[in-house]
C-alpha cells in the first residue's frame, strides 16, 4: 500500500510538471497548445536514448531532453506568431503527431514501434527507500518549478503575458511585441514538458510511440480545466483529480471484472471527453478558480 501510494505520488509529480507548463502557456498567455505530448515525448526519448544507447549519465539525458524540447518549441512559436489561436491549436496537434511519426519511423535511433526498454532508474534499487528518494527528486523539481512560476506571475514578464492573453491588440498598441513573449512562454512550457518526459522515461523504464498519443495532451488539458485555468492551485488540484481518475478507473476494473481492458480504455477516453464538455459548459473557471472574467 505504501509503495503504491509513493508510486502514484511520483506519477502525479511528473504530471504536475506537464500541467504547470500548460498553465503557463494556456492559462497565463492564452496559447492553445494541443501538442503538449510532443514536447513530453521529445524529453522522454532524449533521456531514453542518451542513457541506454548513448550510455550517458542520467542528468545529461534530462538536461538534453529539456533543451531539445525547448528548441523544438522555437519553430512552433515562430509559426504561432502568425496564426489565430484556433489555427495554432491545429498546428500544435499536427506537430505532436508528426513527432510520433518520426519516432515510429526512425527505427535506427528510436527502435520504432518496439520502443526502448531497460532505461536506468533515477535511483537504483528496490523497496521504499529508493522510491522515496525518487519522489524527493521529482518533488524537488516540482517545488523549483512552482517557485519559478510564482516569480514569473509577479514579474513584469508575468503581467505582460497575462495582458497578451486578455487583449493582444492593447499590448501591441502600447508598443510591446507579443511575439517575443509568446515564444519565450512556449519554450518555457516545452522545457517543463521535456523534463517531465525525462523523469517519466527513467521512472517507467520503457518508452514506445503509443505512450505518446494525443490523449496524453488532453489528460493535461482535463487536469487544468478541472482545477481552474491559470492558477497554480488549479494545476495541482486538477492533476491530483486526474490521477485519482486514472487510478480509480483501474480499481473499477478490479471491482467490475466483466469490463474488459479495452472497454475500460474506451470508458476512460469517454470520461475525459465528458469532463472536458461538462466543465467547459458548466464550470469554465474550474474547481479552484474564481477567474470569472475569462470566457
Amino acid at each position, binding site marked *: 500500500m505504501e509503495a503504491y501510494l509513493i508510486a502514484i505520488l511520483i506519477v502525479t509529480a511528473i504530471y504536475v510538471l506537464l500541467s504547470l507548463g500548460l498553465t503557463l502557456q494556456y492559462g497565463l498567455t492564452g496559447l492553445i497548445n494541443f501538442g503538449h505530448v510532443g514536447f513530453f515525448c521529445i524529453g522522454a526519448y532524449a533521456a531514453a536514448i542518451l542513457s541506454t544507447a548513448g550510455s550517458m549519465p542520467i542528468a545529461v539525458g534530462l538536461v538534453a531532453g529539456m533543451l531539445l524540447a525547448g528548441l523544438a518549441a522555437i519553430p512552433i512559436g515562430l*509559426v504561432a506568431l502568425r496564426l489565430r489561436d*484556433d489555427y495554432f*491549436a491545429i498546428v500544435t496537434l499536427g506537430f505532436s503527431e508528426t513527432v510520433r511519426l518520426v519516432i515510429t519511423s526512425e527505427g535506427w535511433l528510436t527502435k520504432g514501434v518496439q520502443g526502448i526498454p531497460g532505461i536506468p532508474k533515477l535511483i537504483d534499487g528496490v523497496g521504499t527507500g529508493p522510491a522515496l528518494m525518487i519522489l524527493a527528486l521529482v518533488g524537488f523539481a516540482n517545488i523549483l518549478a512552482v517557485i519559478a512560476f510564482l516569480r514569473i506571475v509577479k514579474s513584469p514578464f508575468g503581467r505582460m503575458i497575462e495582458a497578451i492573453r486578455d487583449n493582444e491588440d492593447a499590448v501591441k498598441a502600447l508598443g510591446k511585441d507579443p511575439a517575443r513573449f509568446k515564444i519565450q512562454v512556449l519554450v518555457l512550457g516545452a522545457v517543463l514538458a521535456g523534463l517531465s518526459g525525462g523523469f517519466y522515461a527513467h521512472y517507467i523504464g520503457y518508452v514506445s510511440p503509443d505512450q505518446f498519443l494525443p490523449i496524453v495532451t488532453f489528460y493535461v*488539458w482535463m487536469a487544468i480545466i478541472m482545477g481552474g485555468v491559470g492558477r497554480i492551485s488549479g494545476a495541482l488540484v486538477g492533476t491530483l483529480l486526474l490521477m485519482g481518475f486514472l487510478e480509480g478507473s483501474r480499481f473499477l476494473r478490479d471491482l467490475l471484472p466483466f469490463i474488459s481492458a479495452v472497454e475500460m480504455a474506451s470508458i476512460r477516453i469517454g470520461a475525459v471527453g465528458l469532463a472536458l464538455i461538462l466543465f467547459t*459548459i458548466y464550470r469554465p473557471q474550474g474547481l479552484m478558480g474564481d477567474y470569472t472574467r475569462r470566457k
Partner: protein
Amino acid sequence: MAFWIELLISGLVAGLVIGLSALSITLVFGIARFPNAATGDTMTVGAYGALLGHRATNSLLVGGLTGAIAGAIVGFLGYWFIFRKLAQRSNVALLVASIGLAFVLRAILGVSFGHSQQVFQLPLVRPWRIGDVPVHPNDLVLAGACATILAIVFAILHLTPIGRRMRAVADDPALARVSGISPSSVMTVLWLLAGAVSASAGIVAGIKTVVSPEMGWDLLLPAFAAAIVGGIGSPVGAVVAGLLIGVVQEMATPLVGFTYKIALSFLLMLVVLLVRPRGLFGKLEGAR
C-alpha cells in the same frame, strides 16, 4: 507509367474522403466559427452506421443512407446539447468541447462495437483494364456517390432559401441577424448537413479500408489541412484541396514511405498558413 496512374487514381479516391471531411469542417468553421474536432469521430459514426445498414439489408445504398442519417443525428445532437450552449463563448471553449465530444463518440463506438477492425463484405469484382491501368469499378461507384453528395450540398447552399441564409450568416453574422435571419434554423440545418457530410466521408473511408473506432480521429489532421489549404469557409476550396492532398500523399508514398505520408498534409498546411494564410480559395479578409 501505369504505376503512377494507379497511384493517381487511389490518390483521387483518398482525396474524396479528405475533401468531404474538409467540406464539413469548412462549413462549420464558416458559420459556427470554430474548428470542429469532432468531425473525425462523426465520420466513424457514419462508417459504423453504414456497416449496420449494409449488414441488415445487404444494400450499399441503404447502408450509406443509414450512415449519413446517423451522422446527421450526431451532428444535430452535438449542436443541441453542447455547441448551442457555448454560442456566446470564445472559440477555445467550442474547440475544447468538440474535442470532448470526439472522445465521447469514440468511447461509445468502442464499447458498442469493440476495437477489432471490421470490413464491408462486398463481392469481389475483377478490375477493368484500361490500357495497362487496372480500374476498380467500386472506385468509380464511390467517386460517383461522392460527386452526388457534393452536388446535393452545393445545391442546398446555392439553390435553396436556407442555403442562401447559411451563406449570409457565413458572410456576416451581424448583418444576417439584423436582416431577420434566425440563427437557430440556420444552425440546425448546418449541423445536420455537416454531420451527414462527415458521415459520408467516413463511409467511403470505411468501404475503401477498414472500420475501427480510431479511424476518424486518424483522418482528422488531413481533413483540417485540406480545410485550411482550400481556404477556411470555402466549400469549393475544401474539396479541391482534399483531392490535392490525397493525390500528393499517394504519389509521394514511394518516395517518402508509408508512415510519413500523413506528415505531408501537415507540412502542406504549414506552408500554406505561412505563405498564403487565406488558402487557395479563401476570402481576402479572412483572418488567420
